[in-house]
């Protein structure tokens, strides 16, 4: 869909689900994880869908000699787009596995139900496990070999039909010391709608990190250049990263309205904290300063800037 908006790249994502003869699974994805926990989140989706142990799932990313051609991680898209590709690949795995299970149980494919890792002939007690189907796919002696290739290894590409629209509300309370201009964040609460949440701990962690990045932008971080064009904030000595004592602990929560147009019903999450927090912090700073007649202050609201605004 982004092509119609002028993007010059396809913003789809790929996913390959390779089921091994043992029933363990390797997932190859074009998204990349450098701390977002894809190895956990994607493994959870696979384990839940196929009924395999989460320890039997391996996620491979970041190695272009192994993965299909994908687009990567950006724009809070890894789950919404990469996860959707995974869901589509799992659909294909399930469809093929059902055909194999139907053959094994001499039943019609339409009568096969799959839940909790078991293929069952509807209305009977006949069933076969996912691991047996996986083994059969690779040792196809009792197999519909005329009409079905061996193997259980499926790739899907997912091109999103639309953007996802996460929404939320972040509330910040600050206290400002008029003598020094220092802004202290005394309370911060956030509630976000990311659609369905696969792993709440990871989602909360992403929001925490985003909030502090936003706090940094609002209060601390800024690139300063000298008149000669020399960067004066070239190291952590001079560029103020938020530190643990610059922020409090946060109250974060989620409200779920599933995304209507992707298979997992999920929305972007990674950037939410960094988007909402600067606005919430600066609104709080403006609110506090307005009582002293200050109508405008720019980011970052450093102690020097706040003090100058108060003493203008």
């Amino acid at each position, binding site marked *: 869909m982004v092509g119609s908006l002028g993007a010059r790249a396809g913003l789809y994502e790929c996913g390959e689900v390779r089921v091994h003869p043992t029933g363990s699974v390797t997932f190859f994805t074009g998204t990349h994880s450098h701390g977002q926990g894809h190895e956990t989140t994607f493994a959870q989706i696979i384990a839940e869908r196929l009924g395999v142990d989460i320890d039997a799932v391996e996620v491979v990313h970041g190695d272009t000699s192994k993965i299909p051609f994908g687009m990567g991680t950006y724009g809070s898209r890894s789950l919404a787009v990469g996860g959707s590709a995974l869901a589509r690949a799992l659909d294909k795995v399930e469809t093929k596995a059902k055909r194999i299970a139907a053959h094994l149980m001499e039943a019609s494919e339409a009568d096969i139900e799959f839940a909790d890792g078991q293929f069952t002939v509807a209305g009977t007690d006949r069933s076969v496990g996912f691991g047996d189907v996986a083994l059969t796919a690779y040792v196809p002696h009792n197999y519909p070999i005329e009409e079905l290739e061996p193997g259980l290894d499926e790739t899907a590409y997912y091109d999103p039909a639309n953007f996802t629209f996460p929404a939320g509300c972040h509330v910040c309370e600050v206290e400002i010391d008029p003598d020094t201009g220092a802004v202290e964040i005394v309370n911060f609460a956030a509630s976000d709608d990311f659609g369905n949440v696969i792993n709440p701990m990871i989602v909360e*962690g992403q929001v925490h990190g985003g909030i502090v990045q936003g706090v940094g932008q609002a209060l601390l971080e800024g690139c300063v250049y000298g008149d000669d064009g020399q960067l004066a904030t070239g190291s952590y000595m001079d560029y103020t990263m938020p530190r643990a004592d610059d922020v409090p602990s946060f109250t974060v929560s989620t409200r779920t309205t599933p995304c209507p147009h992707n298979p997992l019903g999920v929305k972007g999450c990674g950037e939410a904290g960094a988007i909402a927090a600067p606005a919430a912090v600066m609104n709080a700073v403006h609110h506090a300063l307005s009582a002293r007649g200050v109508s405008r202050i720019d980011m970052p609201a450093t102690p020097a800037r706040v003090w100058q605004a108060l003493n203008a």
Partner: protein
Amino acid sequence: MPTVNMNVNGEAVSGEVESRTLLVQFLRENLRLTGTHVGCDTSQCGACVVHVNGASAKSCTMLAVQCEGADVTTIEGLADGDALHPMQEAFRDNHGLQCGFCTPGMIMSALDLANRNSAPSEQEVRDWLEGNICRCTGYHNIVKSIMAGARAMAAGQGG
């Protein structure tokens, strides 16, 4: 080149180093103990924190020769085989890391705090982490991990 001798993670080691060799270079390049990270090289970020004679120190800000005869502990020295140290376990349980780059330094700093104060308050933990920067977690779960890790260490000593 001078020869330097020290105990690293309980093992006597020695090596020929240039006088200007930093402790972190000696650990990473001579001993191949790459768990200790170099984040900023300017003593700001704390990714390189190790223990020297039981106290936390930024190993990018010490010369290897300053550690002649010293006991040095790095992140590699904490786990007992497959059994993680209680502070490491607390970081895992509380999702105290995301990308993990700051984690070795965070844990070594946290251990020094827990050794001095077995039940630190949230504010004490936050003040102590003044010398450790994290970009991913917003510190929320790191603070939680350290408080839990300190409690677990205290409970372990009591039992």
